[in-house]
């Protein structure tokens, strides 16, 4: 099992969700986050004065999948979230030790 964690542009969330459900991913967790990467922040203008917004709003999508699906999920996520412009985000893959489905008590891959 692996957890795939993607930081994406907020307006790309629907595309990513549809692409993932299209390849059989049946669950995901989404959160509002803020941060910066190589893009850094950006500047805005208010009443004639510039200011820097360091932490840009992004969406974090977390998906846990069986090992055999990982490369497919990463590939689909990357293509769905891509605009080609700066600030498209990043994808991280972490190992997951175990999983429990709370209602049924099923464990590990059966719990996904």
């Amino acid at each position, binding site marked *: 099992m692996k957890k795939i964690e993607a930081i994406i542009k*907020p*307006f790309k*969330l629907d595309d990513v969700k549809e692409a993932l459900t299209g390849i059989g991913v049946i669950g995901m967790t*989404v*959160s*509002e986050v*803020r941060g910066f990467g190589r893009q850094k*922040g950006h500047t*805005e*203008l*208010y*009443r*004639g*004065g*510039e*200011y*820097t*917004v*360091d*932490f840009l*709003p992004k*969406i974090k999508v977390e998906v846990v999948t069986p090992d055999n699906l990982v490369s497919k999920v990463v590939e689909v996520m990357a293509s769905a979230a891509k605009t080609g412009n700066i600030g498209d985000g990043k994808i991280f893959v972490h190992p997951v030790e175990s999983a429990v489905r709370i209602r049924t008590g099923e464990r590990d891959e059966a719990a996904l």
Partner: protein
Amino acid sequence: MRIGSRWSWRLGVCGLALIVALAGKALSQDKPAEKPADAAAQAAAPAPPPKPDPGGTATGTIADVPAKEAGKPTLVEVADAVGHNRVAINIMWTLITGFLVMFMQAGFALAETGFTRAKNVAHTMMMNFMIYAIGMTGYWIMGFALQMGGVGALGTLGGTGVLDSEFTITLFGKEFGLWGTKGFFLAGSSYDVAVFALFLFQMVFMDTAATIPTGAMAERWKFSAFFIYGFFISMITYPLFANWVWGGGWLSTLGKNFGLGHGYVDFAGSSVVHMVGGVTGLAGAMVLGPRIGKYTKDGTPNPIPGHNIPMAILGCFILAFGWFGFNPGSTLAGGDLRIAVIAVNTMLASAAGAILAALYMWVVYGKPDPSMAANGFLAGLVAITAPCAFVSSFWAFVIGAIAGVILCWSVFFFERTMKVDDPVGAISVHGTCGAWGVISLGLFADGTYGDGFNGVPSTVKGLLYGDPSQLVAQIIGPVVNFGFIFGASWLFFKLLDATIGMRVPRDVELEGLDVPEMGAHGYPEIQGPPTLVHGMGALGSARAQAVPARVVAPEGGR
């Protein structure tokens, strides 16, 4: 589901049938009713049957003139009816425009709250809300009496002349009116319809002035200090200056006494209302000092964006709507048809102010800044308030356009040079552009209106139309305004600071004033502890955009 929808369908049909049946019955009742009435008329010729007047041309006839012998009023009875109607139209006009001006309080509340941060919304709203109540109370107790107690007979309102007592001093052999001494608590001889109509109208004007400083002093002013201030401005500073200009006081008699045009003329209050508010805000903002994080240590200003531009712009539109009461209402006469010119001048100046402020920001800074354009819109309105009755539409547009640019310069002057932190631009909109408004009257008044204004025969003319002395009076006014209002307000705020304190503690300001000062967040769902954050459905919401990191964790300050 099917049964439910079938039942609602049946109910609808039943309802329609009922309406048709009732209407049919009503029609059938009307028709036969006419025939017996006609027969009766032929028999005894009493009163004709009541006929409806759908066209409206037969409603309101000689029969409606109150007379001892119905339908045959005497000349005196006709004249009484005419006089009563004239005053009725004027009192109606004064009250209805006063109601419009009252609604400007809502505009101020939205504009000021939109231009400040989400963590202070409850506090900013509460100031804008409570000033209405506090100011009105103070004005009823004594403000109105000081302002209008010596105004004399109110011609357009059918004045009984009960407000006839002005305290004056004699200088250079001339009388200088300083304040009125009748009308406290609207009691005694001021229990009079004309006086009450005047009170309502003047009260909402005073409250407009009183709510302006809350914008300049927002996000750091202690509510207890604000509370006391509400009585100070409504009972002392505003009424005194208003007496000098509108209550028969010494600025209004500069013409009669010293030959300076028509004396100081401020038709609807560029200075009496707006400059008083702006200058009071300047004194207060200087005593308070800038918000934490507004200036870095080397003195360069940091933008602190308002949390809700739509709210602020909605507020500005409400203000512009209220201005149709503010300026045309200041005739105190619905029968004074100059109101058409005044209303058009008012809207033209606002358009010019908005366009010029937006264009200025666009050209100089690259974007037509919404908050500055909204300020420019108001700047045009503030500037045209004094001259609205005396200028042509061309000059109204020019006055508004110049106000739009002066507004931008003034905002940068106070922010960058004076280091005065004014979160909403109130000092520039109301103070600077208020002064420009009264001066512009002295330049562009075209002599088509104002015969007998302030007791001086002939119409009001500015420098361009041949009366330079009017311009002199128009310069004396704002100088006196600034000297008196700034001096008195600064002393008052310093006194408050030394006694109960003007400013909230640093940690309160950083946390936001809502909970420490008001007891609750204005927006609990986005400001509470993380476990209470709802609204996660609004992914990528404006909230994240509206709170730049530097403002969340500010450094420096005063």
